[in-house]
């Protein structure tokens, strides 16, 4: 499979469409599954990991899905390509950085992926643009049913799907919704939201999951509990809380537009101006400025530029994407200069500030 062909497109989940797409970036569900007959990945010998990978790969490629999955073995990839898949959220950092036989099966439009030999033997993932948890659940449930006909899952009546870590046992399901919350960050109300979510046992993480910073004002809200609740009940809890957060963000946006429109307009225009003219740009600053521009577009403060191109830039300015676009490995300084050049060229074709 040619990873380079993926560079140009932003992948389905960054398309910028779907319900509530101005605030909800994507909905994602993952299921942790293990084969009954093998030790968990961390305890499996190199030989067993080979067997697990070969068995799963063969069964996954035979699944009745159209189009069929593409399989990418990770041991054969360069660190740059592995990082590239992490940036696209197709594999976890753990899978990218671990060793031994492991890989990922990729579905059409990058909406489905199955990681092999991560912490669990299989981690199935489905991603959807916008606020679409139910559609994501339908897809992943069907995919899980198909795989279940081909392999024997480790399952017990009492504890459900058995996983390497007891925090995932039961449904093995982690459902998350990625939100863009720039106004709540600007008005400093975001902490209140976090505290409220913590109380109802939902976790908040940054753009790239556990341990990552909430750069670009992106936040992922997900469930922690996997035992003692049905998948439907967990999805309902998340589905019910998201509109409240969307409501808070909209209210904060309305307040900003009403009470400090001038300052906001200035902030957005400066961000856009910097992105279109700077000659050195770090990844962090890019995220911050793109976030302001994204807010500006959604509030009608910038015209002639669409959300899809901004969504694309969020990912294409990440280190591995940038290096693949430039066709050469670049060190930090070179990357900052290439990133600025790329942003200038992409944004000059498009957009102007609204006066």
């Amino acid at each position: 499979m040619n990873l380079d062909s993926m560079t140009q497109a932003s992948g389905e989940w960054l398309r910028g469409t779907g319900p509530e797409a101005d605030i909800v970036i994507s909905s994602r569900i993952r299921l942790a599954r293990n084969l009954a007959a093998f030790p968990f990945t961390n305890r499996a010998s190199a030989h067993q990991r080979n067997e697990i990978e070969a068995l799963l790969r063969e069964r996954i490629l035979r699944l009745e899905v159209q189009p069929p999955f593409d399989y990418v073995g990770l041991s054969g990839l360069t660190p740059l390509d592995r990082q590239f898949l992490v940036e696209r959220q197709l594999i976890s950092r753990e899978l990218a950085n671990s060793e031994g036989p492991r890989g990922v099966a990729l579905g059409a439009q990058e909406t489905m992926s199955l990681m092999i030999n991560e912490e669990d033997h299989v981690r199935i993932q489905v991603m959807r643009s916008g606020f679409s948890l139910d559609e994501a659940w339908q897809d992943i449930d069907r995919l899980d049913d198909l795989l279940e006909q081909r392999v024997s899952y480790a399952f017990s009546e009492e504890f459900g799907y058995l996983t390497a870590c007891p925090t995932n046992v039961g449904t093995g399901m982690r459902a998350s919704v990625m939100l863009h919350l720039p106004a709540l960050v600007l008005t400093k109300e975001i902490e209140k939201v976090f505290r409220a979510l913590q109380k109802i046992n939902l976790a908040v993480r940054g753009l790239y999951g556990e341990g990552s910073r909430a750069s670009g004002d992106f936040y992922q809200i997900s469930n922690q509990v996997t035992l003692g609740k049905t998948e439907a009940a967990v999805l309902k809890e998340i589905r019910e809380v998201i509109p409240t957060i969307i409501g808070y963000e909209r209210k904060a946006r309305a307040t900003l537009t009403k009470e400090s429109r001038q300052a906001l307009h200035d902030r957005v225009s400066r961000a856009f101006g910097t992105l279109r003219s700077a000659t050195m740009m770090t990844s962090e600053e890019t995220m911050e400025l793109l976030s302001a521009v994204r807010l500006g577009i959604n509030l009608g403060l910038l015209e002639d530029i669409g959300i899809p191109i901004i969504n694309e830039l969020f990912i294409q300015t990440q280190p591995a994407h940038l290096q693949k676009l430039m066709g050469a490995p670049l060190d930090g300084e070179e990357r900052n200069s290439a990133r600025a050049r790329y942003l200038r060229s992409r944004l000059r074709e498009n957009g102007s500030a609204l006066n």
Partner: protein
Amino acid sequence: MKCQSCAKAATVHLTDFVNGHKKELHLCEDCAEKQQLLKQQEVNLSSILQTVIGQHIGQLTDELGRLTCPACGVKYMEFKAEGRLGCPHDYQVFQTALEPLLQRIHRAVRHVGKKPRHGRIHAAHLKEIVELRRQLRTAVETEAYEEAARIRDLLRIKEATDEPG
């Protein structure tokens, strides 16, 4: 000095060592609180797990210390240190120790969600695999390599035919 996250004056100065590299952070109070809050969220699961396993082990140490899974050879104490189980059979072997832990993490100890309709391995078949794994470990430990090879072949056949009908 200005805050690294916003334009206000930095009042909180932190030095962090990440993979041996020194990393300095200069933040205003608001941003520091925000980062701290995020950090707390992130360490949540694994730190809860470590604390809970740690607390629980107190009274049962002797008994738990001796618990070893016959299939994969993982000791309860190893699970305690690493936070990861060795094989699916561990849930049965460590059941009494795991249940209070699951109660703390999930506020529940029984699964009520989806069940596989096909793919459930036959109990007798699983038992056989667990027994073969135990024999294999003994063979390797006693350096009975021919015996180990024979068991490995048997296991391979069992696992390869592990496709439900």
